[in-house]
C-alpha cells in the first residue's frame, strides 16, 4: 500500500521553499533570459545568419531553456535530499512508514515541477523578444517533462552521493554546465569541424537540446527518435542507479 499522504507532504514541503522565495524564483530566470537575448539574440545574433531558416534569436530559445532546466533540476534535487542528510532531519523520513521510492517521488517530483515552472517562465519571457511558434506542442511538453524528471533524478542521486557541499557543487559546475554549452545549445552541431561533431555525439545533452529544438522548429542535429531514445536511456540508467542505491541503503542508512 502506497503512502500517498507522505508523498504529498514531502512534495508540498519541498515546494514551499519555491513559493516562499517566489520573487527570486521568478525574477532570476526572467532577468537571465533577458540578458541572453540582449547579448546573444540582438548584439551578436544580428551578425549571425539564420540557421536552417531559423533566426539566431529564435534558434537559441530551446537551448537557453534547457540550460536553465538542466542546471536547476540538478541543483534543486540534489539540495533537496542533501540538506536533510546534512542537518540530520532525514531521520524522520527514514523512520516514517514509507519506502525510499515514495520519498523519491516526493523529492524528484518537486524538483521537476520547479523546473517545469522555470521553463514556462523562460519561454514566456523569450516570447517578448522573439515570435515563438511551437510546431509540436505535445512533443515539446514530452521532451520537457522527460528532461525535468530525468535530470531531477540525476540530481537526487548526486545529493545522495555527495558527502559535503563541495561535491554537491562540483557536479553541476564541472559536468552539467560544460555539457550544456558544448551540447549545441547555442549553435548547430553542423557548424563544427567534423572531428568535434563526432565528439559532440557522445554528449547526452546534444540529444535533449536537439529533440527539444525540433519540437519548436522541426530543425534538429540528430533524428527525433534518436533523441527520444537517448533521453529514455539516460532515465533508465538513473533509475537503475537509484534503485541500486536504495537496495544497499547507500549513504542513507547504516
Amino acid at each position, binding site marked *: 500500500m502506497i503512502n500517498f499522504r507522505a508523498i504529498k507532504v514531502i512534495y508540498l514541503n519541498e515546494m514551499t521553499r519555491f513559493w516562499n522565495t517566489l520573487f527570486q524564483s521568478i525574477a532570476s530566470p526572467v532577468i537571465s533570459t533577458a540578458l541572453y537575448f540582449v547579448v546573444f539574440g540582438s548584439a551578436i545574433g544580428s551578425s549571425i545568419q539564420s540557421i536552417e531558416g531559423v533566426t539566431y534569436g529564435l534558434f537559441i530559445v530551446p537551448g537557453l531553456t534547457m540550460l536553465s532546466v538542466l542546471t536547476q533540476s540538478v541543483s534543486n534535487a540534489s539540495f533537496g535530499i542533501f540538506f*536533510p542528510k546534512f542537518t540530520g532531519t532525514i531521520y524522520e523520513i527514514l523512520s516514517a512508514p514509507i519506502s525510499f521510492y515514495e520519498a523519491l517521488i516526493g523529492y524528484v517530483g518537486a524538483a521537476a515541477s520547479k523546473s517545469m515552472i522555470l521553463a514556462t517562465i523562460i519561454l514566456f519571457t523569450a516570447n517578448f523578444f522573439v515570435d515563438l511558434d511551437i510546431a509540436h506542442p505535445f512533443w515539446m511538453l514530452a521532451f520537457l517533462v522527460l528532461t525535468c524528471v530525468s535530470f531531477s533524478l540525476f540530481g537526487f542521486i548526486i545529493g545522495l552521493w555527495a558527502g559535503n557541499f563541495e561535491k554537491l557543487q562540483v557536479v553541476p559546475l564541472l559536468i552539467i554546465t560544460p555539457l550544456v554549452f558544448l551540447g549545441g545549445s547555442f549553435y548547430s552541431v553542423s557548424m563544427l569541424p567534423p572531428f568535434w561533431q563526432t565528439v559532440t555525439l557522445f554528449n547526452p545533452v546534444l540529444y535533449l537540446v536537439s529533440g527539444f529544438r525540433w519540437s519548436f522548429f522541426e530543425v534538429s542535429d540528430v533524428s527525433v527518435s534518436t533523441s527520444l531514445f537517448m533521453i529514455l536511456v539516460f532515465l533508465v540508467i538513473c533509475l537503475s542507479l537509484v534503485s541500486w542505491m536504495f537496495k544497499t541503503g547507500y549513504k542513507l542508512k547504516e
Partner: protein
Amino acid sequence: MSSIVSIKGLSKTYDNGFEALKNINLDINKGEILALLGPNGAGKTTLISTICGIITPTLGSVTVDGNDIIKDFRKTREMIGLVPQELTLGAFDKVWSTVNFSRGLFNRKKDDRYLEKLLKDLSLFDKKDAELRTLSGGMKRRVLIAKALSHEPKILFLDEPTAGVDVELRKDMWKIVRKMKDTGVTIILTTHYIEEAQAIADCVGVINNGELLLIEKTKTLMDRLGNKQLIIELRDSISILPQELDEYKLNLSKSGKLITYTYDSESGGESVVKLLKSIGDYGLVTRDMKIEESSLEDIFVNLVKKND
C-alpha cells in the same frame, strides 16, 4: 502483561566494523515506561534507531505488536513516534507546518483540532507560526516531541529527552510522559540521569558496551541490588571504635557521634540486629538511628564498573 516490542538476538556492527549492539534480547511491556540507562557510547541510540528503522540490524529480529520491523515496516512505523537525541529541525520551517508534515508523513489524515490541542499541551501554540530557528533549545525539544506525537503513536521513543533541559522543562517532560502513559502509550526513554529513571520508569534497562546488562522492574531492582546504610547516632561521642566491631567495617564520623554501617539489603537484616546488640554490649548508648537506601545510581555505577 503482554509485550509490545520484542527484540531477539539483535546485533549491530557498523560499516567500520564497530560492534555497537551485541545479542540484545528484550521484551518491552505494553503501557509501561522503560528507561534505558548507560554511559556515553553504550549503544542506546543505536538500539532505538534500529527499532525505528533508521539503522539496519546486522543480526536478529525485532517485532512491534507482532509485526516484523523489516517485513511489515509500514505497520510497525505507523505505531512509533521518535524524539531524537539531537535537535534536528529544519531551520526555516514553521512550527505548525512541520507538525503537519510529520502527521502526513506517518499517513494520518489532517486533523487541526488534534494538532492544536497537542501544541497547547506542549505550550507551543502561541509559537505556531514561528520559524524553528527562532526558538530556544527547550522549545525545539518540545517541537520534536510534538512531531513525534503528531500521528498519535502507540509507542514513543525519547532519546535523552531531558539532556540540556532546565529543571522546569524536565518536570514538564515527566508530566507529559506520565500523561502519555495514562492514555496507554508505551514509552521507552534513554537517560543519563538515574533520578529520572527512578522517578518515572516502571522498568529499567542498563546497557554498556552494546550489551544489555540488566532489565528489571525499577522497584525490584532497587530492593534486590541496593545497599542500605544504617546510621547510628550516639549519645556520647567516642574517639575510637571498639576493636571487636571491626568485622562490620563501620565508619565513625569526625564528630565521633555518628556510626555508619553499610550492608546488603538482601542478606543484611540479621547483621543489623547483631550489630545493635554488640553496640549495647560495649556500653555505647544509642540516641537515634536511621536507615538509608542506596539509589539506582550506586547500582548503576557498580554494574557498569563490573562490566568494564
